[in-house]
């Protein structure tokens, strides 16, 4: 058994173990153990990856394993990781374990809840290790479908509507994606020969530009739906607002990153010519996401909606940076994915914990929580500062890199849009500080809130893990951005071959 397949096997084993448990109390313990092992494994993987790189291994992907699956269509179970996927796997395992602890007190259908949650994680891990488009697509769909049950059963508010909307929109995205993948597959051997789904092999050839013009938009939009690309972002606020805490965390923290990662790894990496040609359309859309999401967050009254719109804005920034197609911006995009993943998971965890105490998420009904629940409030402030890009926390590093990279683009149009997108930082500060002021500071408005208990031990684990990671990236970003940077080299070389600048 190779180390990468373990990332799929361990969740599956955990699910099997949960199925056979008699005592419901143990379900969460087993889940935590399983995902804890996964976290350790991720740490081991990062270590192994760095050692391999230090010892001079310059392969594009490491730990590659390739098993033929459907021989007649040349479908493989092919896995491998580069710095970007390793970073994403690390992010996922942190968010998942935080999510498990954040949902420690789920009572209703506890077994089913943890199974669905871990199933979702299985899909995400599988997606990040795949280098075969078919396997990747399979894991992608596997990650989306448990969301329906998770939101529909354990959600709040108009949960059935939100769950259905989210599932159908994401599946709609994957429908476009399927078409895009088929297009790539049938153009993967333009000179004749064996067709392939393998990303590394396809990246060596040039897909005919006529085909790229059709299939790049399909693939990009297909992934973009998951990455909350305007105007396909509407599932996100509703879905996040209705989802239970851990699901919001996983979804905004990890699942939305599948969109950014896929758009980068498949759409741009395999079809850079069309990406270059058509990027202006998507730059407009993503810049709209960035600015519109930020403005949307200002007017929201519900904490989850605020954070959902802020996710639209931040994830839009990821796609925006990818489309700039230079090394710095792409490096920033990956950093932003990780930073936003941790930060937004932290936000949603805290919102869930606050909601669990106050039973309301409307900021107008709350106030002065800093005095009552100081631990959670301080953490909320930290998350907010990370979100608005305070130096020393992860958000600053990511956004700084993105905007520096984006401004390197030689064309005035792209620079202009970048300036527009930078304005989102200011808007972010407005909605974050506004919430902090109303929610945490000031007098305690509601007498019911004066005796609220502060965080319990499992909540502290969940929150501290995430804050630790956010701070670690903020304080020592270089090892991470170096790890990403090396892995960006193949695609950068490919782009430079088309347009040297």
């Amino acid at each position, binding site marked *: 058994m190779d180390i990468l397949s373990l990332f799929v096997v361990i969740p599956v084993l955990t699910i099997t173990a949960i199925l056979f448990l008699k005592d419901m109390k143990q379900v969460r313990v087993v889940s935590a153990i399983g995902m804890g092992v996964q976290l350790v494994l991720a740490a081991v993987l990062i270590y192994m990856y760095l050692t391999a790189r230090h010892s001079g291994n310059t392969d594009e992907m490491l730990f590659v394993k390739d098993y033929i*699956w*459907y*021989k*007649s*269509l040349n*479908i493989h179970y092919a896995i491998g990781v580069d710095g970007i996927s390793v970073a994403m796997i690390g992010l996922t395992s942190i968010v998942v374990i935080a999510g498990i602890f954040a949902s420690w007190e789920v009572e209703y259908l506890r077994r089913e809840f943890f199974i669905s949650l871990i199933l979702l994680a299985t899909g995400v891990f599988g997606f990040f290790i795949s280098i075969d488009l*078919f396997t990747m697509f*399979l*894991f992608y*769909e*596997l990650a989306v*479908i448990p969301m*329906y*049950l998770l939101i*529909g*059963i354990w959600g709040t508010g108009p*949960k*059935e509507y939100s769950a*259905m909307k989210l*599932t*159908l929109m994401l*599946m*709609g995205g994957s*429908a*476009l994606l*399927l*078409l895009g993948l*088929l*297009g790539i*597959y*049938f153009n993967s051997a333009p000179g004749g020969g064996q067709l392939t789904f393998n990303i590394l092999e396809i990246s060596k050839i040039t897909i005919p530009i006529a085909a790229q013009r*059709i299939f790049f938009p399909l693939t990009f939009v297909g992934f973009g739906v998951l990455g909350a690309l305007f105007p396909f972002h509407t599932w996100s606020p509703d879905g996040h607002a209705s989802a239970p805490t851990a699901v919001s965390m996983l979804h905004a923290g990890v699942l939305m990153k599948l969109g950014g990662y896929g758009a980068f790894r498949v759409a741009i990496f395999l079809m850079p010519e069309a990406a270059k040609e058509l990027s202006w359309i998507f730059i407009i859309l993503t810049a709209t996401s960035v600015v519109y999401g930020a403005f949307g967050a200002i007017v929201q009254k519900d904490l989850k909606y605020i954070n959902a719109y802020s996710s639209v804005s931040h994830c839009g920034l990821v796609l925006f940076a990818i489309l700039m197609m230079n090394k710095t911006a792409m490096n920033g995009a990956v950093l932003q994915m990780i930073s936003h993943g941790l930060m937004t998971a932290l936000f949603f965890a805290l919102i869930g914990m606050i909601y669990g105490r106050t039973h309301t998420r409307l900021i107008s009904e709350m106030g002065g929580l800093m005095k009552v629940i100081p631990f959670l409030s301080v953490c909320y402030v930290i998350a907010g500062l990370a979100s608005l890009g305070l130096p020393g926390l992860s958000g600053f590093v990511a956004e700084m890199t993105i905007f520096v990279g984006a401004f390197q683009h030689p064309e005035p149009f792209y620079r202009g849009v970048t300036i527009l997108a930078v304005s989102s930082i200011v808007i972010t500060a407005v909605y974050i500080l506004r919430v902090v002021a109303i929610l945490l500071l000031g007098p305690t408005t509601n007498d019911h809130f004066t005796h609220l208990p502060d965080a319990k031990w499992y909540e502290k684990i969940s929150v501290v893990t995430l804050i630790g990671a956010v701070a670690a990236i903020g304080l020592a970003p270089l090892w991470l951005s170096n790890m990403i940077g090396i892995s960006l080299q193949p695609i950068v070389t490919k782009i430079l071959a088309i347009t040297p600048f």
Partner: protein
Amino acid sequence: MSLENFLIMRQELLMVAVVLILLMAEIFISQENRKHISTFSVVLFSLVTIAGFFPSPSGSLFGGMYIASGTTTIMKNVLNIGILLVIIQSITWLRKIENSEKVSEYYILLISTAIGMNYMISAGHFLMFYIGIELATIPVAALAAFDRMKNKSAEAGIKLILSSAFSSGILLYGLSIIYGTTGTLYFSEVSKLFTSNSLQTLGFIFFFSGMAFKISIVPFHLWTADVYEGSPINITSYLSVISKGAAVFVLVIILFTVFTAIVKTWQSTIYVVSVLTMTVANLFAIRQQNLKRFLAFSSISQAGYILLGVIGGNELGMASIIYYILVYVFSNLGAFGVVTAISNQSGKENMDDYNGLYHTNPKLSLIMTLALFSLAGIPPVAGFFGKFFLFTAAAQKGFYLLVLIAVLNTIISLFYYLLVVKAMFINKSDSPIEKFRSDFPTRLALGICIAGLVITGFASVIFDAIRNLSFGI
């Protein structure tokens, strides 16, 4: 008839033997042993199914009227698996007091239709094909009217026989035009003499319309929902899986071998009806409350997806169709199996009745969910792979727009499949279906379905084996 000839035709002959044995048993068996007829039939038919998997010679009989090849054998095997599952699923229902007098008739009629299907798949001549298709249809009408105390069942029988007589008429008219213009009914000779002149194209259109009735393709689908709703559930599942599957197989073989001269014509025909079938059936399915009608419309839309495998005329298309029908057997019979089990237990068939089913019958709900996910094409169940291959087959020939319409349709279908999932898992109910334990045959059939759903997808050997036996134009 030498042993060699027997081996070529062994699946049909074995089935005839089973029918005869059951007939004899019906006459000579004592009253108390009567209850063992079901078990006996299951054993006999399992033997037939297993016998189909042994390697056998290919060849033709009766001067080319009957052709057996690897392709026809695997098609028959797929159907046999489905028939076996239907037979197992029927046991509980046949144990009911009102059916106890006619158990062996049920099996005789059912297996007769299977014989007809096998002959039509193996036909090398339009007459043989026609005889097969009639033998495959008429007994089903008797079966549809099997619940003779129910008006709806009798109505379903009449509707089925009338519409199939009508479609046979159209089909025969088409065949007569083909005969009139070519002077032969042998597939091999017709294909040589067929051209794209308008009379022959008309003959093809009539032929295709007749087949469209059998597969219930829009706009020839109007009989489907009523017949499916009125028939006993096991017959509904039989009609929606086996009859449809057999008709699709024949259509593929004939289109790929006989009408090769007018590929463009039938491709554009199929393009149109495929889009219509998927879209119309999906839109109608959204509004259904009765689960039998619901599954009826869902199975019409499935026919639309299956046509995506036909349209390319490629070998990948044929492989994906055979594979998809196999998956479809497991998924649809899984869904129908749950509906049957609940209907047998409580008589309830409406979607509202399923509210809160997960809290009382978690296993049945999970099986239903997996089966519906497979129909919708969601991993990790086999339907995902089946749909993927169908779409790949169409995309291989450049029908990207059709694939786009199809994938958008799968989103609509996902919506209504999720409605059932929502009813079972999310909706609350004051009077949910009570907790019950199904009897052994039901559990066995559902177990096979679930195993099939998981294994067929991940075990790539199945698809690769089918692919080796398929052919294109």
